[in-house]
């Protein structure tokens, strides 16, 4: 196997020849953008991502940790990490790392049949298949295992009915992993099955969801008699929760530690909350030497640095066995709350300028709109409340909450708004 340094050297040369530089002014991440791309712009960018991914594949840098039989390079996480360092400053297909590679490709690698892997993974690595997640449901909230989208067996096929939501990039994805209920007569975790579904399947309608800040990247899907062949089932029937556990694990590696993504993963850049940007704003406002302003700036930056130290420490301790896997919930909690706090700090620093701005004040607009969606940092990818449950029950061993959902799923109380959008 090629040694890591040599690999890095080779990558450095190849990148300089083959990838364009990143455009620092382009903010690909919906949470901070004050203006949002048109659908045409999104599709154009998706095409670019496919093309960039294809270049990586052709250059021998796609799927660095993926076995060669599926089109990968068969190298180690250390090689991927080295490549991720080298690729800084280049444009790369950031928008398809999640969810195509994590969690979807990672799940396929673990649970797919040989046929499924051979069919999909090379196409993923060549940028030909973009995958999304049909996971959350309108009535579901934090309870992934409470899915009510139903798959009914029909000979060699399954027929899916229900609704999914919070599908990032849903409207321009090619394929999806989809969690569905295949048995209502057992406890909720024991009646789930995972399928792969083409997003173009008949009966699958996609609607873009507009967020408070104008973003339309999330989608809601309505499944009406969508037919899926049994050969597209991922894992055993009614064994979907086992798949889900790993699915959710891989999804969480977005904040670091996945061997399957190129670049830093789709981590949002700091945008208007970056300390440099905040300091610059305070200087422009003439408040930089004000001690209250400095206390806020320092708090914002303390949050960033402590989070960095925490992620490193928890990752190290989990790797060494000093902390169990559930300890990752601490980084999720700290990350969410500290992110939300930074949005509040920015709003406080900007004051009047953060709620009303002139058309050329792009950063102020980002602060204003960012404040409106700040709780997304504590909701998306599992709420901070769920993280607190995990920490207290799994890490600290405190008593589990009383549950009313351990009976057959069909008898679980679902409340007056069950299945509805709840709005």
């Amino acid at each position, binding site marked *: 196997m090629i040694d890591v340094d040599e690999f890095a050297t080779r990558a450095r040369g190849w990148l300089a020849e083959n990838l364009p530089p990143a455009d620092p002014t382009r903010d690909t991440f919906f949470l901070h953008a004050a203006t949002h791309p048109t659908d045409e712009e999104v599709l154009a960018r998706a095409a670019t991502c496919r093309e960039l991914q294809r270049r990586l594949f052709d250059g021998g840098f796609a799927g660095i940790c993926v076995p060669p039989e599926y089109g990968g390079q068969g190298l180690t996480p250390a090689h991927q990490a080295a490549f991720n360092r080298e690729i800084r400053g280049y444009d790369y297909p950031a928008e398809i790392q999640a969810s195509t590679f994590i969690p979807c490709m990672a799940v396929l690698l673990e649970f797919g049949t040989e046929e499924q892997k051979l069919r999909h993974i090379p196409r993923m690595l060549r940028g030909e298949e973009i995958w999304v997640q049909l996971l959350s449901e309108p009535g579901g*909230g934090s309870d992934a295992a409470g899915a009510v989208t139903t798959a009914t067996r029909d000979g060699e096929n399954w027929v899916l009915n229900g609704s999914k939501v919070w599908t990032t990039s849903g409207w321009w994805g090619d394929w999806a992993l989809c969690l569905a209920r295949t048995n209502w007569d057992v406890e909720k975790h024991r009646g789930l099955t995972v399928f792969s579904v083409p997003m173009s399947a008949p009966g699958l309608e996609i609607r873009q969801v507009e967020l408070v800040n104008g973003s339309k990247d999330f989608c809601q899907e309505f499944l009406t008699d969508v037919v899926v062949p049994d050969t597209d089932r991922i894992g055993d029937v009614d064994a979907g929760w086992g798949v889900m556990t790993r699915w959710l694990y891989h999804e969480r590696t977005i904040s670091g530690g996945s061997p399957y993504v190129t670049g830093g993963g789709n981590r949002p850049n700091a945008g208007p909350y970056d300390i440099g940007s905040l300091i610059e704003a305070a200087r422009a406002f003439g408040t930089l030497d004000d001690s209250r302003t400095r206390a806020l700036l320092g708090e914002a930056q303390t949050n960033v640095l402590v989070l960095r130290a925490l992620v490193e420490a928890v990752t190290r301790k989990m790797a060494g066995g000093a902390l169990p896997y559930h300890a990752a919930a601490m980084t999720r909690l700290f990350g969410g709350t500290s992110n939300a706090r930074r949005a509040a700090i920015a709003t406080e620093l900007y004051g009047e300028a953060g709620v009303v701005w*002139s058309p050329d004040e792009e950063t102020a607009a980002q602060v204003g709109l960012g404040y409106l969606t700040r709780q997304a940092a504590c909701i998306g990818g599992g709420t901070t409340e769920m993280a607190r449950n995990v920490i207290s029950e799994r890490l600290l061993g405190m008593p589990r909450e009383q549950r*009313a959902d351990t009976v057959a799923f069909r008898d679980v109380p679902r409340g*007056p708004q069950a299945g509805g959008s709840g*709005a």
Partner: protein
Amino acid sequence: MFTQTADQDLLEATTADYLRVTWTPARIRELSRLDSPFDPALWRRGVDLGWTALLVPADSGGGSVSGNGLADLLAVAYQFGRHAAPGPLIGTNVVAAALARWGTKEQHGGPLAELLDGAATAAWGYAPRTGPRSGNGLRAVSSDDGVALTGTVPLVETGTASGYLLLAAADAQGLRSHYLVPRDAPGVRTSPLRGIDLTRRYQSVTLQDATVSAAARVGEPGSADDHDELLLDLTAVLQAAEIVGTMERAFTTTLQWTHDRYSFGRPLGSYQEIKHRMADLRTQLEASAAVTAKAARHVGEGSPDARLWASTAKAYAGQVGPELIQDCVQLHGGIGVTFEHDLHIYLRRATVNAQLFGTPAAFTDRLVSLTETALGGGK
């Protein structure tokens, strides 16, 4: 939310009925797509309910229903917050109060009457002295033709096209006086601003030798510094009342949600951590309402502690209001950050009210200065 008289209850109820029908959340979302959501006819019908009369004495064409016009207006502003209704309620009332107190008979007969019958709206061009939105200040040069005003005002709310601006300008001696400037006066140029409120729109104003008659001055020469402080008190109380309205609406919506929404087979509201948060939020709501009502009483009566209470109300409600609504968003989960849900309408309104016309931090500092003065050691 407030303890008030039967007449105040009636004023609040008619306002609430009108706003509920006129400004549904769906309608507010529609208006957000428009460049100019102000509707003169709808505004006039609201004015007919008494919205602009309360801070103006009866002999100037206005009238309070309780003897304390600000306490009356409290409930109107509260309902504006509950419905995130467009105005311009606060600016028009504040300018009307200024004209009623310090205006000439001519100003009472003309502009004030227009505000009272809804033909025009008004905005107060307040600019903080420091921070991101501190304006350059206006300069006033007197001549035989009148007074020429030059400079920029960072931010005023929009309204009727031919409405009024109350602007402070300094003469050559540095004395600041208020002037009532028609929005369409020559030399007045406005540029649209953007912001987070869906229906309230703001402009920056540039004046270049915008000339008004000497009779456009409101109040004695050099009185603007003092008068600004009073207008700031009025604005702060009304903003706080709107914030309390947004808090109440978000809280009530969320309480219902915790009842209807089930998680893991149990209502969300059966989880103790959620219950305790709701208890905290309910307490903050009550506290915000309490301090705002107290401020309205004191400012409306012109009591010695008026400024202290106005500052406390804005400092407190401005701090906890948006945070309360953010917690409501959190309790709703993902749906709470979608445009089709209503919560953000109230979050936007609360946040704009909190930050404009003096941030909570600015009012906190003001409170300390007032306390220093009261203790005899102030600066």
